[in-house]
């Protein structure tokens, strides 16, 4: 049984009259990557900040390794959505400073920073001022700042934001390695394809509420049969049991209502004289699951 690293129970947060997070519970174990997914404004960042103890929840509680988050700062790594570095400082000095703040000795912080800079192909920029680095380099530098001190819990807010596909690969690979080393990782993203590649479990937030939660398999299972790929002539718009028809040229996707039977729908379609060239139950992507859930919510 793997150890629970992060435990959040019933988190709620209000800003004025708006409730931005409602009853969020999440458990993350060692060697597990959990994704908080959702569109902008769904409460992902606020949830992560509550988990870190940056802002207090109005209800609920958070523990990291059995302690309040404030007492586990040196065991936690954080990559904020709003990236921040002292622009006029040299890259290596910046990392050493952050490492020291995380409780490392200066020598150790320097050694680890040089290792990580080499790993992320920044070894030629140790003396460069942060402002002189490209956007992608600054992103990698910020990433190093979050993992430099070997945290047991890594919280990443939109870690791939602004990275091109080539520069996304390396962090993806590193996160996989960290998971294998037993680091518990929580990341928020609205890049669902990346979450699909990386996450063991996901929680989808919509308007501050968790609308779907579980492993990718569980979620796919839950929504299996809800989408059908169809290539057919003269598809009637008012088919019973069909919630929505999405068109991709000749191919269409039928999003079915809950409890609807795809076979009955096909039968009804044929009875209406439609010519059907393809009728296939579709394995849902996270995008489609999210779309379904969001439209239902």
């Amino acid at each position, binding site marked *: 049984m793997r150890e629970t690293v992060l435990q959040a129970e019933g988190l*709620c947060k209000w800003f004025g009259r708006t*409730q931005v997070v409602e009853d969020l519970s999440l458990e993350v174990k060692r060697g597990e990557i959990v994704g908080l997914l959702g569109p902008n404004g769904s409460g992902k960042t606020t949830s992560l900040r509550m988990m870190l103890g*940056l*802002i207090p929840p*109005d209800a609920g509680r958070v523990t990291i390794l059995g302690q309040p988050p404030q007492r586990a*700062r040196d065991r936690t790594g954080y990559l904020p959505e709003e990236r*921040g570095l002292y622009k006029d400082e040299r890259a290596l000095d910046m990392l050493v*400073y*952050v490492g020291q703040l995380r409780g490392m000795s200066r020598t150790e912080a320097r050694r680890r920073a040089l290792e990580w800079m080499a790993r992320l192909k920044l070894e030629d920029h140790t003396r460069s001022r942060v402002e002189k680095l490209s956007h992608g380099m600054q992103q990698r530098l910020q990433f190093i700042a979050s993992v430099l001190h070997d945290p047991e819990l890594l919280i990443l807010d939109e870690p791939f934001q602004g990275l091109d596909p080539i520069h996304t690969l390396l962090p993806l690979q590193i996160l996989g390695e960290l998971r294998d080393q037993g680091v518990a990782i929580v990341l928020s993203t609205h890049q669902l394809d990346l979450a699909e590649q990386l996450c063991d479990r996901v929680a989808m937030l919509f308007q501050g509420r968790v609308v779907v939660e579980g492993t990718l398999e569980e979620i796919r299972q839950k929504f299996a049969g809800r989408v059908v790929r169809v290539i057919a002539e003269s598809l009637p718009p008012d088919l019973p049991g069909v919630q929505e028809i999405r068109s991709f040229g000749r191919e269409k996707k039928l999003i079915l209502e809950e409890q609807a039977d795809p076979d009955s729908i096909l039968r009804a379609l044929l009875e209406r004289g439609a010519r059907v060239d393809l009728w296939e139950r579709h394995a849902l992507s996270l995008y489609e699951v999210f779309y379904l859930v969001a439209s239902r919510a």
Partner: protein
Amino acid sequence: MSWAKTFLIASHEFFARIKSPVFYILTLTPFVGFMLIGLLFGLMFAGASENLGLPVGLMDHSGFLSMPPLKEEEDENFLIYSSMEEAQAALRDRRVRALVEIPPDYLESGQIIIWVYGTSSWPTMVFDQTESFLRKAIVQNRLDSRIARRVIEPIDRLRIISADQVRELGDSDLQGGIFGRARAQVQQTVRFLIQTGARYILVLLLLLNVSISIMYSYEDISRDRANRMGELMLSTVSATEWFAGKILGVVLIMLTQTLIQMTLVLAIWGGISWRLLGDLTLLSPREVGLVLVYYVLSMLFYVSSSMLAIVVHPKVAPVLLGILGLLNLINATVVVAPSSRIAIFMSFFPLTAPGTMLVRVLLKAAPWRDVVISLGVLGVCSMWTVLAGSAVASRVLIPGMPAFSISRPRQRR
């Protein structure tokens, strides 16, 4: 709270700031400005004002002051001498600030001679005082027609003997030709600055430095806000550690700035004459300690307030900082009457207490009772710093958090 992290933040702030050219500009500009102002005042009052509290010597060759029923007119501002040698020796030894010589033909000619050091407007002040003294003496003896004439115009002719001629008195400072005289003039100026003006210059310099610390702290917090470092920092250290580190960093940088300024002052004064450094009995160790305490407290108070200002709204913050800076500089008005009731009130009012007490200590007008009460008030008000710290941490550094929007639980949907 980890003091190691606090000191780490403070040292980071300190070294980041000390590498910046802005630090040196802000260190040297007020220093040079106040030195120039002091020099101008010093030159104007050199050789005279240093002895403002001394009486004026009076040597009467005319016998006018001993005429019956006048006798020797007594006035605490004047010392009447019976021989010129004695009077000149008094002037040379700075026992009198000027010497008024009433020549034998005074009653006919109305001429007097004023011996002074320096070439400033100071003889005018002696002239006015002497005229008033003579008029008072003359009025008492209106029976004598010769004297009565002088009532309307006690002094018809005036001869001023200034620094150039005072060397006749044998002052070694003024020996050695024009360069020797110039050197003596500068030495007198600096002596005046040390003995009379230095406290006032120090008051203005320290208060200005406190205002600069307001600017530093605002700039510092704005930088963390703009660089988006705040959120990263607060995930690393506690708000208290962050805030204390920031404040400590600003205080350290300001103390360094003041130290550089004071070293420059000593270097300049010492460069003019090492002997002058002997005159630096400006502050006793007790006063130095108290000045340091109030200086640091001033900065703590204003630095935390300035950081809090940004919480309200970034656009309103500069206005609030302006008001804070003004409040700080208002303390300078205490120099006019450092023991007045208003000054005492300001000593116990939290916003002005550290600055006012700083001024009063520098002007030797801070009794122990006031020191104790003001420190008590400031001790209670230190909660302000704690409040400012938590407000800044929760409202300023985390992007997207509404300023002063109180978040409270509502009924669940």
